[in-house]
C-alpha cells in the first residue's frame, strides 16, 4: 500500500477552520477530542495536568464522548487503556517523567501487544535532582521500548499531530502505540494561535474505527491474549522471535505511514509538517545544527540571523525520533560538512545527547566523515534562546577547520 485509503474525497480547499488561542496542553486535548477516542484514562502530573484537566472538561461539557477513568496512578492508567483497547476502544492518555517511569511495566507491554494507544508525553526532565520542569529525559529514556515517538515544534503541530497519531497507530501495517511528545512548559503552557480543524473533516480523515482487528478480548471470538512463549521446550523461541521481528517491521512500516498520513493531512487541512526530518535553509549550507521539539523556533530565528550575518549554516530538525528516520536523515546529512546536535536530555553512557548518539550511527552509514559535536541545553526547564543557538552555530562552524571536541557543550551551565 503506497497511499492511505481515503473514506471521502479530499477537498481541494480545506473548510474554514476556527482560529483559537490555546496553550499546547489544550491543543493536545482538542486534538484528542477531534479524534473521538472511546476511553481516556488520566492521572495528573506536572506539567501534564492541564492537559487532562482540559480533556476532563471537554467530556464534562459534552464536547467529547469518551469514558474517562480517573485511575489511581499511571500504572493503572495505561493498564485500563490496554483492557479498553483489547475490547475495541480507541484510547488515549498523557503523562510525563515520574509518571512515565511508574507506568513502565505496562508501557513496555503496550508495544508488545501491538495496541494502538496514543499517549502524549508532556516531556519533563528526570529526577533526581528534583525538578518539575521540562526536558526530554523521560521520553528519551524509554526510546527503546517499541513505541513510535514524534516530537512537536509548535502548538499547532501538537494539535494536528495528536490527531494524526491515532491514524498512524491504528494503521494495519503499524499497529503500535504512539507517543506525541510536547515539551513541558514551553509547549505545554505556551499559548499560541491555532486553527482548529472541523470535526467532519477530521472524521473523514480518520475513516472507520477498527482498533481490535488484530488482538482482542471478545467472547464472540475467544482467544488467549499473550500466552507464554519461548523457553527451550515446546515450540522453543520461534514464536517469540517472529513476534519481535514483527514489531520491528511495524516500526519500520510506520516511517512510511507517518509520511503518508502527514501528506494526507496537508492535503485535507492545508498545513504541512515535515513527517520525519525537516530541513531549514539547508540547501547550500556548509554546516548545520540539529534540533528537536520546541527549541527549533528559536534555532530557526538564529539561523536566519546567522545567514543575514553571512554564515553558511542550515538546520535539521527531527520530528520522528522512534523509529529513527535513518534514510531521511542520511539525505540531509549528505548535504553538509559539519554538524552540531542540540539535545534537551543526556545520554549517560556516551557523555553526549541521545539524539547526537543516534545521529553518529547514521553518520557511520553515510560512509563519509563529518565532524560533529554534541550540545546539551534546556535541561529542567532551562531556556534555549537564540543567543544559545548563536553559540552553537559558532562552535559548529569551527568544526570546518578545527578538530571536533569530544566533550559535549553544556549550554545552560552558567545560566
Amino acid at each position, binding site marked *: 500500500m503506497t497511499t492511505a485509503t481515503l473514506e471521502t474525497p479530499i477537498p481541494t480547499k480545506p473548510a474554514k477552520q476556527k482560529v483559537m488561542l490555546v496553550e499546547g496542553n489544550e491543543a493536545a486535548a482538542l486534538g484528542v477530542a477531534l479524534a473521538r477516542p*472511546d*476511553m481516556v*484514562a488520566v492521572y495528573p502530573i506536572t506539567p501534564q495536568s492541564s492537559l487532562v484537566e482540559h480533556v476532563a472538561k471537554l467530556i464534562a461539557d459534552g464536547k467529547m464522548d469518551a*469514558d474517562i*477513568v*480517573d*485511575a*489511581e*496512578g499511571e*500504572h*493503572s*492508567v495505561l*493498564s*485500563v*487503556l*490496554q*483492557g*479498553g*483497547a*483489547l*475490547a*475495541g*476502544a480507541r*484510547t488515549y492518555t498523557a503523562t510525563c517523567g515520574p509518571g512515565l517511569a511508574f507506568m513502565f*511495566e*505496562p508501557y513496555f*507491554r503496550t508495544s508488545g501487544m501491538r495496541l494502538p494507544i496514543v499517549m502524549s508525553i508532556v516531556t519533563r526532565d528526570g529526577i533526581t535532582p528534583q525538578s518539575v520542569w521540562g526536558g526530554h529525559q523521560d521520553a528519551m529514556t524509554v526510546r527503546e521500548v517499541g513505541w513510535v515517538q514524534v516530537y512537536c515544534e509548535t502548538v499547532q503541530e501538537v494539535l494536528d499531530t495528536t490527531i494524526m497519531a491515532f491514524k498512524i497507530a491504528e494503521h494495519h501495517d503499524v499497529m503500535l502505540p504512539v507517543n506525541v511528545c510536547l515539551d513541558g512548559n514551553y509547549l505545554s503552557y505556551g499559548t499560541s494561535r491555532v486553527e482548529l480543524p472541523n470535526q467532519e473533516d477530521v472524521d473523514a480523515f480518520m475513516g472507520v474505527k477498527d482498533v481490535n482487528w488484530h488482538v*482482542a*478480548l*471478545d*467472547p464472540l*471470538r*475467544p*482467544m*488467549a*491474549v*499473550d*500466552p*507464554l*512463549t519461548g523457553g527451550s521446550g*515446546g*515450540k522453543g523461541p520461534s*514464536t517469540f522471535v517472529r513476534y519481535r521481528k514483527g514489531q520491528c517491521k511495524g516500526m519500520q512500516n510506520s516511517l512510511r505511514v507517518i509520511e503518508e498520513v502527514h501528506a494526507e493531512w496537508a492535503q485535507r487541512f492545508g498545513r504541512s509538517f515535515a513527517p520525519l526530518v525537516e530541513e531549514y535553509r539547508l540547501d547550500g549550507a556548509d554546516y548545520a545544527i540539529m534540533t528537536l521539539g520546541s527549541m527549533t523556533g528559536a534555532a530557526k530565528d538564529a539561523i536566519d540571523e546567522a545567514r543575514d550575518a553571512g554564515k553558511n549554516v542550515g538546520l535539521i530538525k527531527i520530528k520522528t525520533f522512534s523509529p529513527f528516520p535513518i534514510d531521511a536523515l542520511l539525505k540531509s546529512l549528505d548535504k553538509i560538512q559539519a554538524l552540531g546536535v542540540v539535545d534537551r536530555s543526556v545520554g549517560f553512557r556516551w557523555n553526549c545527547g541521545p539524539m547526537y548518539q543516534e545521529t553518529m550511527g547514521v553518520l557511520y552509514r553515510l560512509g563519509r566523515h563529518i565532524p560533529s559535536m554534541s550540545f546539551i541545553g534546556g535541561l529542567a526547564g532551562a531556556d534555549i534562546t537564540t543567543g544559545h543557538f548563536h553559540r552553537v552555530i559558532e562552535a559548529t562552524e569551527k568544526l570546518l577547520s578545527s578538530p571536533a571536541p569530544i566533550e559535549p557543550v553544556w549550554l545552560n551551565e552558567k545560566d
Partner: protein
Amino acid sequence: MGTFGGAYNTIAFDADKCDGCGDCMTACATAKVGVGDTARSRIQIAGNAADGFELALCRQCADPKCVTVCPAAALTKNYANGVIDWNGDKCVDCLLCTVGCAYAGIALDAGTGHVAKCDTCDGAPACVPACPHDALTYITTSRIYNEVGDWEDLFAPGLAGCQGCNTELLMRHTLRRTGPETVLATPPGCVPGMGSVGFNGTTGTKVPVFHPLLTNTAAMLAGVKRQYKRVGREVLALAIAGDGGASDVGFQSLSGAAERNEQILFMVVDNEGYMNTGMQRSSCTPYGAWTSTTPVGQGTGSGGMPSQGKTQDAKNLPLIMVNHRCEYVATASTAYMEDLYDKLDKAIAASKRGFAYLHVYSPCTTGWRFPTDQNMEVARKAVETNFVMLWEYNPADGLHFTRPVDDPLPVTEYLKAMGRFRHLSPDQVSHIQSKVVENLAFVKQMAHRESA
C-alpha cells in the same frame, strides 16, 4: 436404571464429632413412629467411646442392591430426590432387602413387623438438627452438581495443576457458572501456570483469556469491562488471581478499581504465598509458616528473631476489601462448595453493579507440604479451627458469618495437617492460637457492628 448423572442431597456423618448420645435416634423414632424408642430409629449409632462411633443408615445408594433383590417391586430408587422409597402396599415382609444391604440401611422394625428405612423426612431429616455436636449434616451440595452438570466446561481438559490442587476445581466451577460471555484475566501465578492462557499458541480456555501483569489485573479488566459497557454488551469481567498479585504488588490496582467501583468480579485464590514460582512468602503467608524465603534455619534471623518461618502475621486482604465498601466481599473455601456457590452467584450479580471480591482459600499440597489427597481435609480443618472464617459482606446488610464455627477445634488440628508448620515451637503455636481468637473477635465485632 433411571437417570444417571444426577446427584442428591445426603445426610453426612462425622464420626470424630459423635459422642454416641443417641439424640439423633430419639429424634428419628419420635418423628417416624411417634415414640422415642431408639431401637426403632432408622438411624442407628453403633460403636463405643473407646473405638469411636459408627452409623448404620440408608446411604440411598445410586445402584441399590436392596432394590434389585426385592421380589415384590416394593423398593424403588426415586430419581427425583435420590431417596430409596419403600412401598408398604407392595412389601411382603420377606426381608430379602435386608440381605441386600451391606450397611444395615434397611432393617426390620420390630414394632411394625415391616422393614423401615430412612426417607430423609422429605428433605428435612429430623436427626440432623437433633445432633448437639454437628456430627450430622444434611449436605445439599448436590444442587450444584445437578445444575452445573449441563453447563459447559470452559476450560480445556487436562490443565497442568499439581496433583491434589483444588484450583482446577475452582476454575472450572467458576467459569461454568459465569458462562461464555466472560473475559478472564489470570495474572501470573498458578492459574496461568496450569495453562489457562496456554503456551506457545495453545489456549486453556474457551473464553477470551489473558495474562495481565502481576500488578495491573484489576485495571486492565476495568478497561475491558468499560468498553463493553460503552458499546452495550453484557460481558462479565473476571479475574482469577493469586494472593501475591492481589495483596502485594497488585494491591494498588485492586484497591483503585474497588474504590472506583469498577464492575469486576475479582477472585483471589489464596494459597498463602508465591506457590507457582517456588513457594516464596507473600503478605498473605501466615505467621510461622515455612516458605522458601522464610526458611527454617539454624541461626537467628534479622532482629534477633529465630529463623523459624514467617515472623509476621498475614495481611487480611478480604477485610481490607470490606473497607472499600465493595458491592460484595466474601471469603470461601472449596471444602464448602455450596457456600462457595452461593457466594459466586451473589458475586456475579454484584459485579453487574460494581466491584465484587471473592477470597477463596486454596491449600497448596506442594507448598504447604501435605499429602495430595488431603486438600479438602486441610481446607475443612482451616474452617473448623477458625483459622479461616467464612463470611460475606455487602453494603446494605453488612458483614455476617455464613458458616459460623462456635465450637472450634484447637488450631493445632489444622497446623499438624501439613509440613510447613512442623517446626513450630509451643510459643509460636500459642501465638497462632491467640491470633485466631483475636481475628475471630475482630470479625465478630465487625459483623455485630455492620449489621447493627
